[in-house]
């Protein structure tokens, strides 16, 4: 591309610590990268913000960065007020803001609606450009699949997902490409239809690198509260992997007064974690994966898996420098923005959106299982196979 790409940002809300702020600010203000304060070689020229509340900072950003203009509709943001698509890349950030929830507890962020308005402009213009969509594609599986299918049929580069797959790791390791994996597990924290997605992406970005690649998922079952502890007791997931994941945490809640970092006993864990949640699922090739949310016990995301012929344990933490308690900057957005930049410059996604299509379906299936008395949910629709990229895409430089 011989000129600087023009980028549009379509967002729900722009306030301190909203995903819009983390992502769009990095395009405007630059960010620390490879020993420099790096400015993306592209211009964020248009901004659509659906909700402007008292905590809004989009006005400040529009004033300080006059090359970026605010538009009242998505179509205008994409056409820059003209007739046709006039940008070279689109950021869709439908996270945060006041939106209703459904009876399953899913927040109805308008990612699908924003996406479809964008697609209308693409269609009317006879042209499409690369798109990044923050977090999972939609709360609704059918919509997510439709979004994916449209990207395929129109042929534009499409990336989505969480920062977890691309942030720092301690240790800084990846799943060796093509190794056999017999079980994978992630211990994280947070709520249903929110951080469960991050934990699923943490797990998926590792196991997708296994022998023969990702094959899709056959079924999922959720466990919560007492049934979680029963499943743990019955070793439905490996205790050793669970312990290994916890041993990667930097935030284990001390289980004993006066000690700063003891390893909790099972009884102590039950005292600390009032509402444990697991989604366990089987991939088509037989791999068993388990996503665990241990609210109260940890505040980080930790992966462990059995790999290779000797069933060695590979484990790491996907580290989130999370403000405001530990940092001031949510710098896990820096590698995410860097990957997005690469897509905007090359027209190619740096990792497959099929990962996020799958994790979107896993979140929906997890929510369904939880709202259906933890029933085992068959997932023939998650027949999603793909190959991971050979090169690692997490932050390590």
């Amino acid at each position, binding site marked *: 591309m011989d000129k600087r790409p023009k980028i549009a940002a379509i967002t729900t809300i722009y306030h301190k610590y909203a995903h819009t702020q983390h992502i769009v*600010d990095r395009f405007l*203000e630059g960010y620390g990268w490879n020993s*420099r*304060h790096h400015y993306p070689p592209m211009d964020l020229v248009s901004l659509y913000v659906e909700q402007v509340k008292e905590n809004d900072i989009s006005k400040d950003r529009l004033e300080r960065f006059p090359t970026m203009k605010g538009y009242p509709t998505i179509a205008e943001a994409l056409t820059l007020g003209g007739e046709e698509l006039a940008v070279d890349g689109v950021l869709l950030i439908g996270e945060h803001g006041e939106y209703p929830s459904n009876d399953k507890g899913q927040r109805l962020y308008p990612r699908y609606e924003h996406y479809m308005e964008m697609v209308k402009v693409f269609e009317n213009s006879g042209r499409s450009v690369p798109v990044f969509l923050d977090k999972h594609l939609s709360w609704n599986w059918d919509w997510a699949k439709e979004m994916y299918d449209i990207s395929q049929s129109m042929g534009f580069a499409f990336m989505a997902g969480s920062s977890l797959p691309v942030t720092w790791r301690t*240790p800084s390791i990846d799943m060796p490409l093509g190794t056999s994996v017999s079980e994978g597990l992630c211990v994280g924290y947070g709520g249903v239809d929110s951080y469960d997605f991050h934990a699923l992406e943490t797990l998926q970005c590792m196991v997708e690198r296994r022998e023969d690649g990702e094959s899709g998922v056959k079924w999922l079952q959720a466990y919560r509260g007492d049934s979680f502890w029963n499943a743990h007791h019955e070793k439905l997931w490996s205790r050793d992997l669970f312990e290994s994941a916890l*041993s990667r945490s930097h935030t284990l809640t001390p289980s004993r007064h006066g000690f*700063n970092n003891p390893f909790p006993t099972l009884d102590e864990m039950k005292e600390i974690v009032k509402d444990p949640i697991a989604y366990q699922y089987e991939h088509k090739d037989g791999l068993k994966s388990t996503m665990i949310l241990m609210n109260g016990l940890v505040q980080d995301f930790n992966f462990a898996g059995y790999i290779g012929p000797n069933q060695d344990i590979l484990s790491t933490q996907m580290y989130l420098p999370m403000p405001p308690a530990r940092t001031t900057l949510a710098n896990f957005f820096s590698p995410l923005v860097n990957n997005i930049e690469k897509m905007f410059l090359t027209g190619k996604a740096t990792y497959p959106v099929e990962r996020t299509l799958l994790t979107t379906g896993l979140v929906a299936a997890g929510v369904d299982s939880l709202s259906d008395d933890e029933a085992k949910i068959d997932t023939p629709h998650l027949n999603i196979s793909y190959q991971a990229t050979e090169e690692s895409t997490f932050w390590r430089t």
Partner: protein
Amino acid sequence: MKRIAVITTIYRYLSHAQHFADRFLVGYPKEGKWHRPDMKVVSLYVDQKPEGEQSEDRAREFGFTVYPTIAEALRYGGDQIAVDAVLSIGEHGDYPNNELSQVLYPRYEFFKECVKVFEDDGRAVPIFNDKHLSYNFEKAKEMVDDGHRLGFGVLSGSSLPVTWRLPDVDIPYDHELEGAVMVGVGGSDPMDYHALEAMQCMVERRKGGETGVAAVQLIDGDEVWKAGEDGRWSLELLEAALSRSDTPCGLTDEDGRTQNLIGTGELYKLVDNPAAYFIEYNDGFKATLLMLNGAVRDYCFAAKLKNEPIPVSTQFFLTPTPNVTYSACLIAKIEELYETGVAPYPAERTLLVSGTLESCLKSRHQGHVRLETPHLNVQYRAPEESQHARR
């Protein structure tokens, strides 16, 4: 099973003694496992016992004995040394300061009492000494010399050299360095000590190995910025170090934005009283520690490698309180010392940093003058294998 004597100033929640000794009692995270050392704390000496301290509780629960003297702790109640290793934690507790604002922790005194037992009983065991060896270089040197003279392993220093790095990088071994800048925060001394040792664990890997420090100077205030403009320290390396920070203050605190702290000039508004510690080495290499309270809250480093256009930079990752798992990284090194009898990296690093800090503080005390430091002629080679957490 190795038997350990713990010698400490104070044992209370979140003191270094509690962080360190507890990990030998309840285990710690190591390479993706909860590791329980095959070692036993058998005796404890604690210098100060204010209300709420934990030494007796720990002794009761874990079956060791608190002794009234260091010699008795090492002899474990008998008349001969009866332990295989010493964990000496002279940090925290109520001790006076000197005119250089150094806290006069009795690390040297603790160490010399151990050495006396070693000499009297005819057997010496490895000692880990937490943080700098002593506030005073002569004392610190005597400690390291005792180790060589009696043939026991001495490991010392901060957790920063061994904690996780973001990114996981090290200085390529024996590579020529053209400059280094370390950014630190916190009070002086203790936190400038941590920052200096973090810087030293990187620059000691340079071509030819460590040659010792020829001169130091500590300046503060606007002179620091002027020295940067004059090229006495590298703005490029400061930008590289700051590019690794997760904690810029000011406008980032206000609305979360990323900041080019140098480019926008915010840096100069945020830091009330910057300080620069200039270190000139015997081989001509120069490195600078910038203490930038108010600008950031983490510890970041950058160095220029000869023939490499992009500086090497990283953050020394101080993991969150209360777990402070960075201290677990150091415990793994202490365990290695106790198992093998050999320090995984030389105490000369800590000796040099102890003396460098003392001379920097003297420079400040004497009106920020440049001080030649022929006594800091401490030469050593770092191990080629990286020692920080990366597995």
